[in-house]
C-alpha cells in the first residue's frame, strides 16, 4: 500500500485533483500483485465515499472475484449474492442478455432496503460483523431476505427517483428488476443447489428443483433464463434433473417456455465461457486452491450440455471451449508447480521446515485436484510428464537433505500416488 502513490481516498482537494489521484491509483493497481490488491480492497471496505470507492474498485472487480477476497458482509452484498456470476460492469451490460449491471446495484439495494423497513434491522443485526465467506449466515439471512426482496422488485411499477444516476435507461428498469425478482424468489433454492454443488457430496436436491420449477410458473422469460443460467454455471449436476422435471410438466405452454429458458441459459453459459472473462481470466488467474473446483464444475457443465438433446449442435463450441480450458489449465498447472514446488525445493534454502512442507503438500493437492478434474477434457500425458518431473525434483531434494524421508514419501504420495510412496517407504525401512 505504501508503494502505491496517489492513494489518499480521504484527501480533500479539488475534484480535478481527486480524479487525477484516482487515475494514478488505477494505473498503479493495474500492475499491483495479488496481496496488494487484497490490502487495498480491505482498506476500501472502511471508506464511506461510495463513488470514489466504486471508481477504484470497479476495474479491480474481476481480479477480486478471482482472488475470492473475503469482504465484510453488507446488506448490498448479501442481497445480490444469488446473482454473482451474472453481475457485469456498466460497459459490458446489454439489455436482454440476462445479466445485471453493477452500477444499478446501489440504487436497487436502497430501494429494497427502504421497502423492507422496519424489518431490515433484523437482517442488519444478523449480518453485523460477518464476512462474505460466512456460508451459514449468508444462507440463513438470504433465506429471509431474497424472497421478500423478490416480491418488492416484482411489485415495482416505476424507477426510483435517483435511478438516472445508475446510467441505465428508465425504460430498461422494469424488465431488469422483474427478471431479478425471479432470481430472488428462487434465491434460497438456488443457494442450496450451489452449496450442494460446492460440497459435492449429495445428488441433486429434488426438493429445491421442484420448488424452482413451481416458482418459475408465471415469471418473465428473462428471469427464467437468469435462473437457468445460474443453475448451469453453479450447479451443473442439477441440470439433468431440472430438464427431466421440465419434460414431465403436463402444461405444454409451460414446458415449452421453460425448455426455451434452458436453451437460452445454455447459450448464455456457453457465451460466457467463450468470453475472455470466462475461461482465460476466470480459471487462468484464479488462486490454485480454487481452480480444481472451478474446473470440476466447468467440465461437468460441458458434459451436461453435450449430453442434452440438442447437444450435437453445440459440439464445435464445446470442443473449442474444452481446448481453451485444457490450454489454460496446462499453463496454470505448470506455473503452480514451479512456484509452489520446484522453487522451494531447488531454492537452496536448506531443509524444508514444517510450515514449508505443509505449504508444498497443499500446493501438490491443489495441483492434483486441478489435474484430475481437467483430465477429462485434455490429454493426460502432459500432466503425467509434469508430475513425473516434479517427483524427480522431490527425490533430488531428498537426496540433498532438503527433505526428510517422511516428507519425501508424503509429497511423492500426493503427486504420483500411494503405491510409489508405499514402495519408497518399505525400501527405506528395509535399509534402516
Amino acid at each position, binding site marked *: 500500500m505504501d508503494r502505491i502513490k496517489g492513494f489518499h481516498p480521504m484527501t480533500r482537494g479539488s475534484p480535478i485533483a481527486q480524479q487525477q489521484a484516482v487515475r494514478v491509483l488505477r494505473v498503479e493497481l493495474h500492475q499491483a500483485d495479488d496481496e496488494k490488491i487484497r490490502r487495498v480492497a480491505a482498506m476500501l471496505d472502511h471508506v464511506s465515499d461510495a463513488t470514489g470507492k466504486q471508481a477504484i474498485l470497479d476495474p479491480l472487480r474481476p481480479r477480486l472475484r478471482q482472488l475470492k477476497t473475503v469482504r465484510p458482509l453488507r446488506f448490498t452484498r448479501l442481497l445480490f449474492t444469488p446473482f454473482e456470476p451474472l453481475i457485469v460492469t456498466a460497459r459490458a451490460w446489454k439489455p436482454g442478455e440476462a445479466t445485471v449491471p453493477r452500477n444499478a446495484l446501489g440504487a436497487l439495494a436502497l430501494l429494497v432496503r427502504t421497502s423492507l423497513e422496519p424489518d431490515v434491522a433484523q437482517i442488519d443485526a444478523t449480518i453485523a460483523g460477518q464476512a462474505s465467506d460466512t456460508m451459514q449466515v449468508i444462507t440463513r439471512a438470504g433465506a429471509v431476505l431474497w424472497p421478500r426482496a423478490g416480491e418488492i422488485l416484482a411489485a415495482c411499477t416505476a424507477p426510483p427517483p435517483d435511478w438516472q444516476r445508475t446510467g441505465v435507461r428508465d425504460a430498461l428498469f422494469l424488465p431488469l428488476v422483474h427478471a431479478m425478482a425471479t432470481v430472488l424468489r428462487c434465491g434460497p433454492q438456488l443457494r442450496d443447489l450451489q452449496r450442494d454443488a460446492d460440497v459435492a457430496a449429495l445428488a441433486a436436491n429434488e426438493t429445491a428443483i421442484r420448488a424452482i420449477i413451481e416458482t418459475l410458473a408465471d415469471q418473465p422469460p428473462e428471469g427464467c433464463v437468469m435462473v437457468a443460467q445460474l443453475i448451469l454455471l453453479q450447479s451443473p449436476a442439477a441440470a439433468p434433473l431440472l430438464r427431466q422435471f421440465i419434460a414431465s410438466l403436463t402444461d405444454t405452454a409451460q414446458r415449452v417456455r421453460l425448455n426455451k429458458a434452458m436453451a437460452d441459459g445454455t447459450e448464455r453459459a456457453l457465451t460466457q465461457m467463450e468470453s475472455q472473462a470466462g475461461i482465460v481470466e476466470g480459471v487462468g488467474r484464479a488462486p490454485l486452491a480454487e481452480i480444481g473446483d472451478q474446473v470440476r464444475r466447468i467440465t461437468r457443465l460441458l458434459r451436461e450440455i453435450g449430453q442434452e438433446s440438442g447437444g450435437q449442435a453445440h459440439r464445435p463450441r464445446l470442443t473449442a471451449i474444452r481446448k481453451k480450458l485444457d490450454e489454460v489449465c496446462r499453463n496454470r498447472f505448470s506455473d503452480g508447480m514451479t512456484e509452489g514446488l520446484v522453487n522451494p525445493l531447488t531454492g537452496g534454502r536448506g531443509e524444508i521446515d514444517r510450515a514449508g512442507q505443509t505449504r508444498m503438500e497443499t500446493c501438490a493437492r491443489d495441483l492434483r485436484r486441478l489435474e484430475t478434474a481437467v483430465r477429462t477434457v485434455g490429454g493426460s500425458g502432459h500432466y503425467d510428464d509434469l508430475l513425473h518431473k516434479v517427483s524427480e525434483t522431490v527425490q533430488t531434494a531428498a537426496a540433498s537433505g532438503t527433505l526428510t524421508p517422511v516428507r519425501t514419501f508424503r509429497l511423492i504420495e500426493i503427486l504420483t500416488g500411494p503405491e510409489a*510412496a508405499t514402495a519408497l517407504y518399505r525400501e527405506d525401512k528395509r535399509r534402516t
Partner: protein
Amino acid sequence: MSDVQIPALKPYHPTTFQERGVSVPFTTPLLEGTRARPTEKQRVELVIPNPSGGRGVYIMPWKAIADWCRPTLHDAVFNDRIAALRNVTPTAIRRVGLQVAAEGLAGEEAMEAARIAVDTEKDDRIVTNYRLLMTLVEQVRSRFSLPDLVKAPGRIDVMAQAKLTVEWISPRLGQTATWTAGALEALAEVLLHIGIGSNSTTGRMPRILAMLRRTRSEISEWGSYLHDDDHADYIAMVCAVTDLTLSLAQTTLGQAQALTSDMVDLLRKWAADPQEISRLAMRPEWLLDGWEQICLIWSHARDDAERRAALAEIIALVPVLPKEAVEWTEIKADFDIALRFRRLVSLNEDWRSGSVVFQLIARNEHFRAITCRMS
C-alpha cells in the same frame, strides 16, 4: 476407484463388541468407517462398510482393498501394524494410530499432535498412578485404625507417608508392598482414560462423552430448523442411537470410575482377576468407539449444505450396538435401530472419487490431528 472385482456384501449383525470390531482411523475416503476384528485363526480382518451407505459390509484381504481404492501410505502402514496385534482393542488401535501419526504419515499437523500426545500420555500415566496412590492413602487413613507413625500427617512428607501406608496395607491384602506398587502402576494404565478423582470430568472418555452430547444437541437443534422428512428420519435415527450410547457409556463410565471408591477392594479384585477389572474399565471405550469420528465430521460442517453432507456421511458410520451392551448395563432398548434405518442416501457421483478425494484425505488427516490432541 478401479474396476476391481470386489467380494459380495456380507450381513453384519454383531452380538459382541469384539465381533463389531474396532474403528480404524484410516484416511482413505472409501475406507471410512472400517473396523478391525480378530478372526478365529488369530488374525485380524477388516470390516468395510458398504460405501453406498446401505446395509452389509465387505470383508476382503488388504491386497484386494489396495486394488479397489488405492489406500494412502498412512493406511498401508497402519494395516501392517494392526495385522501384528494380538489383542484388537480400542486402546491398542489408538496407540497404533498415535505411532503412525507421530511418524508423520498423516501430515505435519497430526505428527506434531501425536508426538505431544505420546509425551502427555506418559505424564498422565504418572499422574493417574499418583492419584490412585493418594486415594489409597486417604481411604486407608479414614477407614482403618492406623499406628501413629503411618497416619501422622505433617511430620513426614507425603510420599514417605504413602510408602508407609502401602507397607501397612499390603500384608492385609496378602501381598507384598512391591506387588501393591506394581498393581497401582498397572491400574493407572487401565484406568488412564476414564478420569478418576478430581479428573473425573476431564479424562479422555468423559471428554468424548461431552463431545458426543454436544454433537447430539447440535444435530437435534439443526433438525428442528429444517422442514424435510428425509432429514428428519435420519436425524431421529442418529439421535436415538446417540441417546442410547450416551446412556450406556455414562453408566459404564460411572461403574468404572466407582472402582476407585474402595481402593482396598479394587486391589483385592485386581489380585484375583485383573482381566475382569480391565474389561470393566474398557467398556466406555468400546461403547464410544467410532463416535469420535462422527463428532468430528459434524463439527467440521460450517453451513446447512455441509451439514446435509455430514449427515449423509454419519448415517453410514453410526456404530451398530451389539446385544452384549445389555449384559453390561441391564438397559433395555431397541438395539437394531441403527441397522434398520441404514439405507441408501443419494450421493453425488463424484463423492469420494475424482478430484474431491484429495480434499477428503486432507480433512481426514486434520481429524487425525484433532484426535491425537484429544488423546
